[in-house]
């Protein structure tokens, strides 16, 4: 059969399977949980956030904003651009949900092929489609599912901002909302590709999860805490795309494009490695 049709069929089947699978539900719930927490905090601190948008509050003076600064990093200029020039409701919401995105994306996509490799169910597919079609169909199904989760979250955040933000007009808020959605989705793709690779290498969803989360948390710990002790260790954080996600929403255009290109680069490398491992291994 022609390749695009096979990929499309597998994509649709994967999306549908995720809707009723534990990992699909859990991954979406994790994202919705983070979004819900952010929205509840924003609703409770609407006055403070509005003062921030009006320029009446130094971003570094508030505890809430200190959390945002800790998550997103960046200097005062970055925070001003993030929280004053754009709707701070969406920006804060984006920073919290972006923090959750690697976890949510990895949980959702931890079993693209792993169980099927382990229990040999993949053999039912191999006489019907090429290995590449199977890999890309399922990978894109996961990308679409996580994208839908991001869309739902971004829509909720935008609606909240429209109601609560007193200093930005609707068009500005909606534009930022669309941007935030795109940034969240893009930030999720390398993690989905990473889990495709882990699943294809291990052939077991639990091992894939252990490998994926272990790699993420290991690098975060070594690059983060180790970086306090030895400056050079900070560079280790760039083995994974985690530090890039906050740069996707704001900054100068060159910086955003660079972050987007680098994020896609990570996704391409992980996805290619995942596809290669599925193509070469015994099934």
């Amino acid at each position, binding site marked *: 059969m022609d390749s695009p049709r096979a990929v499309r069929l597998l994509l649709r089947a994967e999306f549908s399977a995720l809707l*009723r699978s534990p990992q699909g539900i859990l991954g979406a719930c994790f994202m919705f949980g983070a979004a819900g927490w952010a929205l509840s905090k924003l609703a409770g601190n609407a006055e403070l956030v509005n003062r921030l948008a009006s320029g009446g509050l130094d971003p570094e003076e508030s505890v809430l904003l200190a959390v945002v600064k800790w998550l997103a990093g960046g200097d005062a200029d970055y925070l001003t651009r993030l929280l004053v020039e754009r709707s701070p409701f969406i920006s804060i919401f984006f920073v919290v949900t972006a923090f959750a995105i690697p976890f949510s994306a990895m949980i959702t996509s931890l079993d693209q092929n792993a169980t099927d490799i382990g229990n040999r*169910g993949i053999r039912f597919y191999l006489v019907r489609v090429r290995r590449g079609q199977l890999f890309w169909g399922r990978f894109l199904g996961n990308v679409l599912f996580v994208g839908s989760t991001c869309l739902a979250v971004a829509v909720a955040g935008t609606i909240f901002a429209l109601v609560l933000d007193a200093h930005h007009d609707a068009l500005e808020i909606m534009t930022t909302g669309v941007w935030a959605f795109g940034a969240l989705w893009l930030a999720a793709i390398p993690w989905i590709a990473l889990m495709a690779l882990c699943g294809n290498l291990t052939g077991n969803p639990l091992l894939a999860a252990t490998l994926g989360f272990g790699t993420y948390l290991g690098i975060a710990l070594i690059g983060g805490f180790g970086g306090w002790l030895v400056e050079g260790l900070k560079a280790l954080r760039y083995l994974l795309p985690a530090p890039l996600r906050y740069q996707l929403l704001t900054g100068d255009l060159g910086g955003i494009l660079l972050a987007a290109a680098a994020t896609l680069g990570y996704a391409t490398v992980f996805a290619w490695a995942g596809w290669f491992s599925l193509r070469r291994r*015994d*099934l």
Partner: protein
Amino acid sequence: MSGAVEIRGLRRSFGPVQALCGVDLDVPEGCTFGLVGPNGAGKTTLFSILAGFIRPSGGQVRVLGRPPDELPPGTLAVLPQDASFRRQVPVRSQLELFAKLQGLAPEAARRDVERVLELCDLREIANRAPDVLSHGMRKRVAIAQAFLGEPRMVILDEPIAGLDPAQARRIRTLIQAEAGKRTFVISSHVMADIETLCSRVAIIDKGRITAQPEVADLTRRGGVVVFTLEAAPPPELAAAFQALPAVAEVEAKSVERKLQISVRAGTDLDAACGDFLRVLVERRVAFVAMQKGTSLEDAVIEATEKPAK
């Protein structure tokens, strides 16, 4: 007749273990072919290579004239051993996806799924998820997927194992009805099934094909008659048969209550059978069954144990 399977010098090792060591095999297109041998002989490895699940370490493999991983989707169907379906997705949805992936349009896929559900008596459970089905039902679903569309060749790894007698008969009948329309390659430990379904067999042992005879030749249907008796054969019975001019050799198996009679070359076996029956009636020896040729089971055991002796 062109070859459905052509294998030359096929080798496959798993670390230090040589699963296949220099297999040569030819399966004519359109025939129902059996692959038999003891556990660990290399049957599943060979099937996995034919289906493109694993790659050979060396040698050449062509299935329907192409390397396995270059076969057009849907031309080869496989019943893999111990493969599981996606747990939460209903049987009908999974079969419809498989049919569509074979290139069928949505409506045609739906019709074809209904056809195979009916063939394998699965209509009632079609909307259930595989994880709530019994082992036998899941096995039938796996068989059903192998009959979707119009594959030119079907590989069935232990198709009857785990089925109850009624379902086993149903699947046997299904394979017999489809035989001739496409090539079947079947592996089974139940030699009676292979004997019923296949016209040719390959015997594989320790990673090598030791023989590829016609089933009729292997079981010597033209030269041996086996009687299954109600009781162990009396001692003088073998001598009585041996006295007949057509008889070359008589083997009495007391525990199995069998009498195996080999006839001389050129003997009219049907005429000789009349004489054999007469001997039994005259000596009032009751028999349960008379069979031309040895059982395939005996023939395969003999063939696989011979090199070890």
